[in-house]
Structure formats: structure tokens, C-alpha cells
């Protein structure tokens, strides 16, 4: 047909090495980015909820919560960013669930690529959405009068958020692999995420809570993430919440990533 045909690389027999796995993960992430390019409304869609939350929390609850909307904005922006990041990870699971049911993963599994590449690539690409959301929320916050501690700290806050999101995304992946429909992934996620984010320091000072709730809120990973965000973006301690955020990230990753990979392999009976 064509004079010069393009030779595929000689298939390397055997399991792909680390370099190949990284490259395959990046290719998977590339696919997700192209999807956003073809469907940019997805970014609008995922910007709406943080914008609404920020406006409603500050201008409805602000006066009651902190005496003034500007004081509450200074308190709550970090918490809302933390909450939104956790909600966003849900879409990783729903996306994987949809791909699994449509047969896209059958093709992936018949290719000589690393087993983890499709899942890791999806998680990796979804970090773009995380960064996008932080930009939207901090941008809107600044318009509303938010005073940023420093740009350098804000960049660090974004990095911390991404690291935490990378780790907890595996919870969502696990649900996405196990659940038999996207709706179920959403229901599971809401049942976990809603109470988890509200029983933390994200929106209120935990010292106002009753004792048993305080005891939980103090260990709740969302509290540490929200405190870390608040410390880096606005005011308050940084070191300790940052440390606990990383501890939680490592623990959650160490538990859920192997479970998710195991469930994924079992899916292949």
C-alpha cells in the first residue's frame, strides 16, 4: 500500500520494566488529557460546585460563623479546597468503572503493558483536575478579598494537595473496580466523603464540637489536610498538620493501593 511501512518496535517479550511502565502510565494519562480537550465542558462542570460552595459558605454562613464574611473566607478557603479535592477523587473511580464496563480495559489487558498502567494513568491525569480546581478556588477567593500568605506557600499547598489526592485516589479506584455501576461508586463515595469532611476542621473550629466529636475530628485526616491548607494559604500552624497529612497519605496508600490492584486482577477471572 505505502512504499515505506512503519515498523512496530520488535515486541519485547516478557513483563515490562519500570521505564516502560512509567511511559505507559504517561500514555494513559495523555488519553485522559485528550478527552478533556474534546470535552472541555468537563472542566466547567467540575468548577461549578467549588464556586457555589465558596460563595454560599462565605456569604451565607460567614457572618454567623466568624463575625464577618472576610474573616470566615480567611478560615474556610483551605477547608473547602481540602473538601473539594476529596470529592474530586470520586471521579477517578467512576471513570475507571465506566471504562471497565465498556470493554476498553479488555483491549488494555490484551496489550503487552504493565497491569497498573491504566489505573495509575487515570489517577495521574486526574491530578490536572485537582490543580485546576485549586486555581479556580484561590482565584475566586482572591476576587472575594482573600489574603494569600505567600505565592510560594500557595504552590507548596497545591503540591501537598496533589500528593494527598494521589494517595486517597486509590480508595476511589478500589470502589470503581469493585462496584458494578457508576451510580454505586457515587453513592459509596458520598456516604463516606460527606460525613468525613463535615466532621473535621474544614468548616468550623473543632473546639466548638462536643467531646466525642472532637476526639474523632482531631484524628480525622480531613482535619489535618484542611489545617495544612489553611496554614499554607492563610494563617495558623504548618509543620504539624503537614506531617499528619503525609502520615495519612502514606497509610491510606499502603492499605488501599494493594487492595485495589488485587481487586483489579481478580476482575480478570
Amino acid at each position: 500500500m505505502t512504499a515505506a511501512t512503519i515498523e512496530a518496535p520488535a515486541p519485547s517479550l516478557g513483563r515490562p520494566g519500570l521505564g516502560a511502565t512509567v511511559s505507559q502510565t504517561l500514555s494513559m494519562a495523555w488519553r485522559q488529557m485528550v478527552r478533556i480537550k474534546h470535552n472541555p465542558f468537563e472542566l466547567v462542570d467540575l468548577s461549578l460546585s467549588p464556586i457555589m460552595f465558596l460563595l454560599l459558605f462565605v456569604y451565607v454562613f460567614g457572618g454567623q460563623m466568624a463575625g464577618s464574611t472576610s474573616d470566615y473566607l480567611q478560615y474556610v478557603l483551605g477547608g473547602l479546597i481540602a473538601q473539594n479535592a476529596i470529592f474530586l477523587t470520586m471521579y477517578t473511580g467512576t471513570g475507571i468503572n465506566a471504562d471497565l464496563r465498556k470493554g476498553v480495559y479488555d483491549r488494555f489487558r490484551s496489550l503487552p503493558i504493565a497491569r497498573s498502567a491504566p489505573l495509575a494513568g487515570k489517577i495521574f491525569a486526574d491530578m490536572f483536575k485537582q490543580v485546576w480546581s485549586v486555581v479556580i478556588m484561590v482565584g475566586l477567593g482572591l476576587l472575594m478579598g482573600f489574603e494569600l500568605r505567600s505565592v510560594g506557600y500557595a504552590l507548596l499547598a497545591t503540591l501537598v494537595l496533589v500528593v494527598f489526592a494521589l494517595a486517597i485516589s486509590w480508595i476511589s479506584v478500589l470502589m470503581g473496580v469493585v462496584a458494578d455501576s457508576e451510580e454505586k461508586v457515587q453513592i459509596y463515595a458520598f456516604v463516606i466523603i460527606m460525613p468525613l469532611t463535615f466532621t473535621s476542621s474544614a468548616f468550623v473550629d473543632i473546639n466548638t464540637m462536643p467531646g466525642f466529636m472532637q476526639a474523632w475530628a482531631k484524628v480525622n485526616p480531613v482535619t489535618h489536610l484542611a489545617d495544612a491548607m489553611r496554614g499554607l494559604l492563610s494563617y495558623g500552624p504548618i509543620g504539624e498538620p503537614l506531617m499528619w497529612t503525609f502520615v495519612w497519605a502514606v497509610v491510606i496508600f499502603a492499605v488501599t493501593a494493594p487492595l485495589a490492584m488485587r481487586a483489579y486482577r481478580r476482575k480478570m477471572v
Partner: protein
Amino acid sequence: MRHGNQNPCTVRTLPKEDDVSHSTDYAIETEGITKHFGDLVAVDHIDLNARAGTVLGVLGPNGAGKTTMVRMLATLSQPTAGTGRVGGYDIVRNAPEVRSLIGLTGQFAGIDELLTGEENLRFIGRLLGMPTRDAKARSRELLAQFNLADAADKPAKAYSGGMRRRLDLAASLVGRPKILFLDEPTTGLDPRARGELWGLVRGLVADGTTVLLTTQYLEEADQLAHEIAVIDHGRVIATGTPTQLKAKIGGQTLRIQPEDHGQLDALRDLVAERFPDLDPMVEAGAITIGVNDDGVMPTLAADLRDRGIALTEFHLGLSSLDEVFLTLTGRRTEEETADDENEEEAK
């Protein structure tokens, strides 16, 4: 054929069973391969062989175990018992090696609908480790070959059914697989799109690709396959070349419909008198006869003309899968549907 090496008189020097890889004439071989889903036995001790560079057709109704068979051979699923080799590699122990030799086109399109045709193919090329430039060139090459060049930059969701199947087939060929699994590649396609896909498959086989094709259409197996295995309830119930199978099951059906309904009896008597071996069936104002002798049609045509019986239809066609199954099992294929649903459940 498939039990050849069980015959103690046959002297063959096959490498030992536990060799990692061995070279035989067969690109695909299974021995007693079996798959259970709970209580359901989807594939029950199937032995299949496909010689390199040929097409093996696996013919059967819904729920016969065709897809389960392909999924095991393509390393998506592990057999409960028995062994399978693809390109000489064991499908369980050497799954990564098998994957680097095969291409798979399943019943459900493994393409991303949001991506364009070109992006879908480039994506697979990148996954397989091609540099971006090569991946782009390879996808353009395949799009041209598969008559999709004009739609290359349109999202796949805008493609017709036939175009999607072609894109899906192209996606399975990016890495130039030596062995290709096509799981019901033309189910749901119109005759023209089906014919186009057949042409593409023939081209691949001419270039030396080994193909395992599953299908519900006897005609498709007849058109493409060198060997056919008919499977039912997870078992092989007949094997052979298309010609052998047709001879066995009366591969063709002659349908005669008289213009005057009242002449139906006269027509049946004529057929019975001329060909006492054939068993004419009368239904819906027409007579159908299973035939495997090319002489039947001209003889009858002459007789009918002599007796002045005018016809509205006189048609020789390939037996449907339904007729094949009726001949081989005494059952019609509709009974299988319930099992198919069970199999889906079990997954």
C-alpha cells in the same frame, strides 16, 4: 484431526509439555481447556488447533462459550483446567509473551469514543512504546488501509457501526500482531459493512496473520475460515473444513415458492418423487429442502418447467446456523439464550 496425538500409533516428535516455548505448526492450540463460572461450565474440555497463517472459525450460537474461549486465549481470563498455547507460549505462565504476539477485537468496541480515530490508534502506538512520530505515521497508515482516512480527525462517537468495527480492528493491529482474535467481528453490521470487514481480514491472512474468528454466521465461517469448529454448550460438536462440514450437514437450502398456493402439494409430491432421500419441509407457503448435491437445482428446474408450475421464489442459499444446529444437535439455537444470560451474570 484434533485427536491425532492421542493415537498411540502416530509417531510425532512434539516437544515436551512443560517447555516454555516450542515451535509447532500450530499458532493456537488448546488441550482440554475448560472454564467454569460458579456452577456454569462455559467451556468444557475444548481441543482446538489453528495452523500458522490460517483462519480458524469458531462457530456457535450465543452462550456457546465462544467469547470465554477467546478471553482465555487472549490472557484476559484464566482457564479453570486444561492448557492453551498461543505462538508456542503458555497462556497462563507466559501471558506477557502471549500479549506481545496477539491482537484482540472484541464484541464491545475497545475504542475511546471521545478521541478521534487517529488519536485512538496513536494512543495504542504510544502504549506499545513507539516514538510519537512513528505512532502517528502508523495510525495514518492503518486509517488509509481501513478506508477511514476521511474520518481520521472526527471523534469515534460520530462513526457508523461499520466504521467503529474497522477502527477497532485497526486498533488491534497497531503492533502488527502475528495472531489475531476476532470475537464476532461483524455481529450487528449490515451486509455491506460485513463484506468490507471480510475483505480486510482476507488481506491480513494473505500477509501471514493467523486468525481465530468466532461467529454466529455459517456464511462468515464459510467465507473466511480454513477450518471450522462448531461449538455448543462449551463443547466442540463438529470440526472440519467448510466443505467437509457442508457435506455433513447439507450445507445448502433450496427454497421453492409456487405462485399459486394450491400447487404446494403438487410441488411437494414432485420433490418427494424425484428425490426420495430429501425431506421437504412445508412452511409459510414454500418448500425448503436441505441439499448438498449441485444437481438437484437444475433437475427440479427442468421438471417444474415441464409441469408448468410457476414460481415466485427458487433460491439456493447457505443453511443458517439454526439449520446447522438442528442437524447436529436436533435443537434450535434459541434455547441457548438463557445460558448466555447466565454466563454474563457469572462474570
